[in-house]
């Protein structure tokens, strides 16, 4: 260890109990140089994740190679700044996307589930975790007889965007996989929100959520299994949201979700 004028904290052993930044040591009463710069690095990563360009084309190509049909959509939010300042615009399809989807809807017919992937507040999350979630989730639902639409890829979406898409298609369920607001130690965390019989007047109370999907949090495969279980429950009871939570699927809505919705 390099010599340092700083004071080390003698309770390093408590770090085994939490990932909180405890026992940091100090220089006088202030943080040590390494602490200061490590914090700045974590924040820089989170900022880069928020502002990273969403490579929807590449994601579609990757999903195509894995055997999934995809369909690109966009919202009324035209760029990242607009997306951050106007959450209402990210909840609506662009007129072009709306028309194209409406025109296609009859051809597809009414199906059980529309899965929508959006960058949300972390393109990194959508790009890194989507494939692993779908690889596990889709076969489980198909085995239960579910008919799926192509995977929709929507840039600059908010959670509520699924209501417009779902009601336009007449889908029984929608599931949105969306990048969550990056935390300091988690720039690539994906959230999954589903709705039974989505329509314009749905609110967060009508949805269920699995959050913190990333290898170091809720691993994608385990999260997909949980989602499949919840979706099957939801179909069986014919409901979603708080009402589903009450019949056994206990999943607290994470507070971070409020920033996305």
């Amino acid at each position: 260890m390099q010599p340092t004028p700083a004071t080390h904290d003698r309770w390093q052993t408590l770090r085994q109990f939490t990932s909180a930044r405890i026992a940091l040591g100090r220089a006088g009463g202030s943080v040590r140089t390494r602490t200061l710069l490590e914090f700045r690095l974590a924040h820089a990563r989170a900022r880069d994740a928020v502002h990273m360009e969403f490579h929807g084309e590449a994601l579609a190509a990757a999903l195509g190679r894995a055997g999934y049909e995809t369909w690109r959509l966009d919202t009324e939010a035209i760029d990242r700044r607009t997306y951050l300042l106007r959450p209402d615009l990210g909840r609506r399809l662009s007129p072009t996307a709306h028309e194209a989807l409406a025109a296609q809807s009859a051809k597809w017919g009414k199906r059980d589930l529309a899965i929508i992937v959006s960058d949300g507040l972390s393109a990194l999350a959508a790009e890194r975790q989507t494939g692993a979630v779908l690889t596990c989730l889709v076969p489980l639902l198909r085995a239960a007889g579910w008919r799926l639409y192509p995977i929709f890829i929507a840039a600059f979406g908010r959670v509520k965007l699924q209501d417009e898409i779902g009601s336009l298609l007449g889908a029984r369920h929608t599931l949105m996989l969306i990048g969550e607001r990056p935390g300091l130690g988690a720039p690539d965390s994906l959230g999954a929100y589903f709705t039974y019989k989505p329509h314009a007047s749905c609110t967060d109370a009508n949805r269920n959520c699995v959050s913190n999907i990333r290898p170091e949090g809720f691993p994608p495969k385990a999260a997909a299994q949980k989602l499949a279980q919840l979706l099957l429950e939801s179909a069986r009871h014919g409901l979603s949201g708080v009402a589903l939570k009450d019949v056994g699927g206990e999943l607290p809505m994470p507070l971070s979700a409020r920033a996305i919705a």
Partner: protein
Amino acid sequence: MPTPHWSINAGGLRYHFSSLRELMAKATPHRSGDELAGLAASSAEERVAAQLCLSEVPLAHFLEELLIPYETDEVTRLIVDTHDATAFAPVAGLTVGAFREWLLRYETDAHSLAALAPGLTPEMVAAVAKIMSNQDLILVAKKCRVVTRFRNTIGLPGRLSVRLQPNHPTDDPQGVAASIVDGLLYGCGDAVIGINPATDSVPAIETLLRLIDEVIQRYEIPTQSCVLAHVTTQLEAMRRGTPVDLVFQSIAGTEAANKSFGVSLSLLAEAQQAALALRRGTVGNNVMYFETGQGSALSAGAHHGVDQQTCEARAYAVARHFSPLLVNTVVGFIGPEYLYDGKQIIRAGLEDHFCGKLLGLPMGCDICYTNHAEACQDDMDTLLTLLGVAGCNYIMGIPGADDIMLGYQSTSFHDSHYLRQVLGLKPAPEFEAWLEKMRIVSGGQRLLPVGEHHALIDHVLA
């Protein structure tokens, strides 16, 4: 009485404002939430024209033209029904602009401001804040003195308290305990040891409340506990005999926004009575803890066309009705669609602290931001320093400023030592004495080296 139309000449143009509500919104310093609501001034000049116009509005007019109708909103009824005309008398003949000058004169001091508080409505306070500069907001807030008590004394001159916020993503008891001990060994926790639970259920909060209570009892710490669940969860915990010190609730400035939080004035009164009945305070009876933040009313679709800073000030009318120990504005938590960047967050923090103090509240601030806002820790350093100068009662203390449960950044234990050093501030006196006794701090400010077998460390390992 017909609604007056406000108008003024500025820059060769005549500006009209059709209502006091519109005038207030357009006079508000620029922020993204008012833009999102479609209430903001359409140009920089219109904003200042509105401020000029607002400065000429008589304070007494705010008692006549209500921004949200008396009949439809219980917060308006509370404001009107509890207004103290006698206390208002010293400023009753002033305009908003003259009121600013009255606040700034040498003769206006802690005593006269405390006497005035019951005579002020949130709308009057919000109005004067809109035309004040940042330094005005700091100077006048600094004159205010609001002291509250439960197991210690918070808000005395020369003191700065800290809420110890030991959150954990799964409420793991040992994980929470490790952060509590870290905070205590950094001399923090005199405002409250307050946990945001990951799960809002009675058994979950009972575990956490007993955990904190055991630490407080065993080491005879002169402080109080709180688990920031919904008020109904805390009420049920109290019915079951759980040791509840402070009752927490998030509140907003309109009846409809409070309804979206699942609360009403009567429910808050019930919770206050239940906590008072437990008689757990030793030096005082301030049993409530409230959190607020600009943008919450709009976010709930419950702002009634009123700007977010005025809605926030109205939340303080709710708070003061229940004599809280602590109130804090969680200023940057809500996101960039309400406060876009460091500049907007700093301004809002100063406004909220000023408005709360002028209305007689023990204001603290969660000086914070999220990763999708245009802000960084240096902006928080700036607001921290400004609020320290303004006499803020308390700030948050979170390990390394990183809340691993709520996913945002606030202020750290270390930050409190920075502020105490540069401004010569000490913890609450009872807590200071305890820190000396436990050989954690000497002289109220300097941290002592702590050995690896300090009782608090062994407490977590046991």
